[in-house]
Structures are given as structure tokens and as C-alpha cells.
């Protein structure tokens, strides 16, 4: 397995150092723990913090900056960060108005963020948490750890970050995050596996003529394996599952988000977006806002995900609010 690296154990820290060097106007690293902090923190606003395993770049470090996250805590590749990271990051960026943790629903992430929240609460710092679980591929939530947090996390971080930037209270910021989570649905698929650098080989084998539908962002399998189909058929199957799940209905306005898993060229992502536009047009679901690109990836995995977020006037205004981070920027 070929990887561009120096020492396998240093991948995360060296990549973080590069992120800081490339975007020193926006972010700085915490001096003692692994955390990406907004360069101008703390601000007099609710601090929005997220984190999770590395390997999903630009998530989360690439979303630190004006109008989005105040801090991001990266773990090792595909491994949740530890409580001391979230605790120290929160202390470094919070300005007295409280801290919101945006947590993707994975057993380890939830536990580690909970421990950090307990530590902060013990010091009298107000903390709230919202767990994002937008993956429609997980059907039997009762018999699993629940739906995973995937593409919807990016949209939540953008919208919640805007709400915090506008000076909303911790309760208000949390409520917007919950609203996004309640109205967002995602489904992913993969053509190839990713390879965790320290493991040195692909996480799973997928025959040349097959695809994994409903894949998570760690190469963990999803709903089912199927024979390859055309892009149009794949989009119809995935978007169909998403639309039926919320459900999204005729006349709804949505953010349509086509996300690459890391190894999919943009030529294919735009082709998929074209198929998604046709699908939603036929359903009379209006694409009010859109996002196409690699925003929540799974190392070098080939594949993509579709995320739809149902908008109301508040969410639309927050989506449009200026944002300036290494990986997402508009209006500023």
C-alpha cells in the first residue's frame, strides 16, 4: 500500500502542522494537545467545537474559522479523539458564553465527548452537545449503535457556526443544530476500499464489478453489496432512499450536497450531481442551495455520498451567512 508519508505514526501531527502553515491567517494549533483552533479565538460568542477521527479531511480542521468551528479535535486515523483534547480545546476557545460540541454518532466519539463535557461542566463551563446521526443506510437503529453521523455534519457545522457568529445563546445554537439534524439525511457508497495507514492494507475487498451501498466513512460496510450499475441508477437508488426517509416532499426546498469520499474525481462528482438534479426535478423538490466536492472523506476511498437538507427561511439565511475557513468560504 503506497502512501505519501514519512513515519506512519506521525501522519496526523505532520498533516496538522501543514494545515496550520498553509492557513495561518485562519487557524493555529493548540500548543500542547492535538487541536486546531480558530486563530482569532476566543470570541465573545458560543464556542462551536467538533472533532473525530482523522482521515476525513477537510472535516473537521478545514472547517475552523469565521462562521463555522472555533476548534476541531482530530483523533488518530478513524479513531475518536480523547477527552483531554476536547477539554483543552474548549478551554482555549470559549469566551464565557458556553460551548457546543457537534458529535458524529459513533460509539467512541460519543463516549469521549461525553467525558470531556463532564470535565468542563465540573468547572462550571456551560456545555451542550448535539449528536449528528443522518445516515439513512442504517435501518435498524434499535439494534445498532444507531445511525451514523456522516455528510450532514458538514452542513450542521456551517449553519451552527453562522448562528453562533451572530451572537445567539447556547440554547439557541443547540436548537439550530438539532433542527439541522432532524432535517438532514445522507447515504453513501463505495467503489473501492480505503486503507488505514497504520494497517497498511485495504480495510475490505470489493470485487471489480461490485459496489458497497450505504457505506460509512470508515470503510465499514453498509446496507448491501451489489453489482455495478450506471451513475444514474445509483443516484436514483440512493436519493430515493433519502427522499423516502425524511420524507422530502414536492415543493420542499433543499441543500443538495454531493460529496466525494476522497478518491473520486470531480468529473464524476459533477456527473453525479447532474443526475441528482434530474432526479429531484422529477420529484419537484427544489434545490435552493448546493455543494459539490470533497468535504467529508474516507482517506482514498472511491465513492460518494448524497446529502439532502430540508430548508426553512432560518436555515437558508444561516447557510448564506459568510464563512471563511480553509475548506469552505463565501461572502467574505
Amino acid at each position: 500500500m503506497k502512501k505519501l508519508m514519512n513515519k506512519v505514526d506521525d501522519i496526523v501531527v505532520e498533516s496538522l502542522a501543514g494545515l496550520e502553515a498553509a492557513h495561518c491567517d485562519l487557524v493555529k494549533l493548540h500548543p500542547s494537545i492535538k487541536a486546531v483552533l480558530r486563530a482569532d479565538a476566543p470570541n465573545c460568542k458560543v464556542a462551536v467545537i467538533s472533532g473525530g477521527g482523522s482521515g476525513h479531511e477537510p472535516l473537521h480542521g478545514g472547517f475552523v474559522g469565521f462562521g463555522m468551528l472555533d476548534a476541531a479535535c482530530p483523533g488518530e486515523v478513524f479513531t475518536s479523539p480523547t477527552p483531554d483534547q476536547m477539554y483543552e480545546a474548549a478551554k482555549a476557545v470559549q469566551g464565557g458564553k458556553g460551548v457546543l460540541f457537534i458529535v458524529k454518532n459513533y460509539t467512541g466519539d460519543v463516549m469521549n465527548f461525553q467525558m470531556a463535557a463532564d470535565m468542563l461542566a465540573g468547572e462550571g463551563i456551560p456545555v451542550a452537545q448535539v449528536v449528528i446521526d443522518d445516515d439513512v443506510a442504517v435501518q435498524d437503529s434499535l439494534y445498532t449503535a444507531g445511525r451514523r453521523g456522516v455528510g450532514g455534519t458538514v452542513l450542521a457545522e456551517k449553519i451552527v457556526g453562522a448562528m453562533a457568529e451572530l451572537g445567539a445563546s447556547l440554547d439557541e445554537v443547540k436548537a439550530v443544530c438539532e433542527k439541522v439534524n432532524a432535517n438532514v439525511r445522507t447515504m453513501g457508497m463505495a467503489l473501492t476500499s480505503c486503507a488505514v495507514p497504520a494497517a497498511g492494507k485495504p480495510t475490505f475487498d470489493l470485487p471489480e464489478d461490485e459496489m458497497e451501498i450505504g457505506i460509512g466513512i470508515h470503510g465499514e460496510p453498509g446496507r448491501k453489496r451489489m453489482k455495478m450499475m450506471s451513475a444514474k441508477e445509483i443516484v436514483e437508488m440512493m436519493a430515493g432512499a433519502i427522499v423516502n426517509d425524511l420524507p422530502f416532499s414536492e415543493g420542499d426546498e433543499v441543500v443538495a450536497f454531493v460529496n466525494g469520499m476522497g478518491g473520486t474525481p470531480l468529473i464524476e462528482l459533477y456527473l453525479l450531481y447532474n443526475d441528482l438534479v434530474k432526479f429531484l426535478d422529477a420529484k419537484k423538490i427544489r434545490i435552493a442551495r448546493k455543494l459539490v466536492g470533497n468535504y467529508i472523506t474516507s482517506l482514498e476511498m472511491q465513492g460518494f455520498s448524497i446529502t439532502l437538507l430540508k430548508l426553512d427561511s432560518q436555515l437558508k439565511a444561516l447557510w448564506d451567512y459568510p464563512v471563511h475557513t480553509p475548506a469552505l468560504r463565501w461572502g467574505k
Partner: protein
Amino acid sequence: MPMNVEQARKVFERVTEAIISHKEYLTELDSAIGDADHGINMSRGFTKAQEKIKAGAYTEVGGVFKDVAMTLMGSVGGASGPLYGTLFMRMSMKFGTKQEVDSADFVEAFEEGLKGILALGKAQLEDKTMVDALTPALEAMKAAASNGEDLPAVLEKGIASAEEGMKRTIPLVAKKGRASYLGERSAGHQDPGATSTFLILSAMLEGLRE
């Protein structure tokens, strides 16, 4: 034969070696039904814990367990960091200021540790997790300790039951953790968490016997 501070140190030395030498094995088990990092994370955590306790000066057994717990929580990540961290932290709290712990102390502390894991992870028996090895291990150790057996004999019983529990995870369908997303496809694979539990207990006995 009770366990003193030096033996506790030895115990974790052996545990660290066992985890490191089974790093690939644990990772392989995890790649079948999880995300291919269990061995890597556990090795990183126990290597750091080993460095920490090697350098530390202790007068109480609980001190060794506490440092191991804190290091695991701060370096493993994932679910296993907080879970194993909780096990050893609760054990250390139960040991209190004891300079030596006997089989009854150990079993009592282990029960507290398992309670902590259940509260944090919310897994039940047969969810295909480390609980499937920990629970039968505790039951067997409780029985042995109440018969007045010494710590090595008690651990031996616990290990045998942990091994059975670990093997019983093979046909199970996972209901907690990342393997749960596989549904039926998780059946037919041994749970990595139950496996690391078995390895840890086995290595503890080795260290104790030295």
C-alpha cells in the same frame, strides 16, 4: 498470594507485551467487522501506559491501575480507550490505599470496573462486545474467590470463562459499536474487544506468576 505494587507493575508489563504482540491480530479481527484499528490503538495506549508506570513511584496498587487508566483514556481513543480506562479507574478506586490486594479485593474491584463499562457503553450480554468476555470472567472469578482460592487461581478461572465468552461472540450479530452496522454480516467473526479482554486477563496472570 496477593498482588503488591511490584507485581501490579509486572502485570501491566505483560499486558503491554501481549497487546503489542497481538497488534496485527486484533487489527485483523477489527477490519472484518469494524474499522481496522483496535490493535493499533490498544498498542499505542498500553505502550504509553507502560512508559508511565515504569517511571512512576507507587506505594499503592491502585496508583498503578490509576495511571494505566488515565493513560489509556488519554491516548487510545475510540470506544476502547474510555471503556478499558473506566475498568482500571474503577478498580483503582476500589483498591483505595491498599498496598496489596487479594483475590476478594480483586474480584470486588473488577465488578466495579465492569459496572462502569456497562454504564458507559450500555452494552448487554450477547451484543458482541467486550462485555461478553468480561461478564463470564467476573462470574467465574466471583465463584472462585468465594471458595477462598488465591488470586492466580481466581484469574485462571476468569480467563477460561473469558475465552469461552470470546468464542461465543463468533456467531453473534453485533448490536453495539461499529460492528453493529454490519447487521447479520457481523456473524461469523470473533469480536475484537472480547478478544483483547481475554488477552489482557491472560497476560495479567502471567505477570502475577512471575
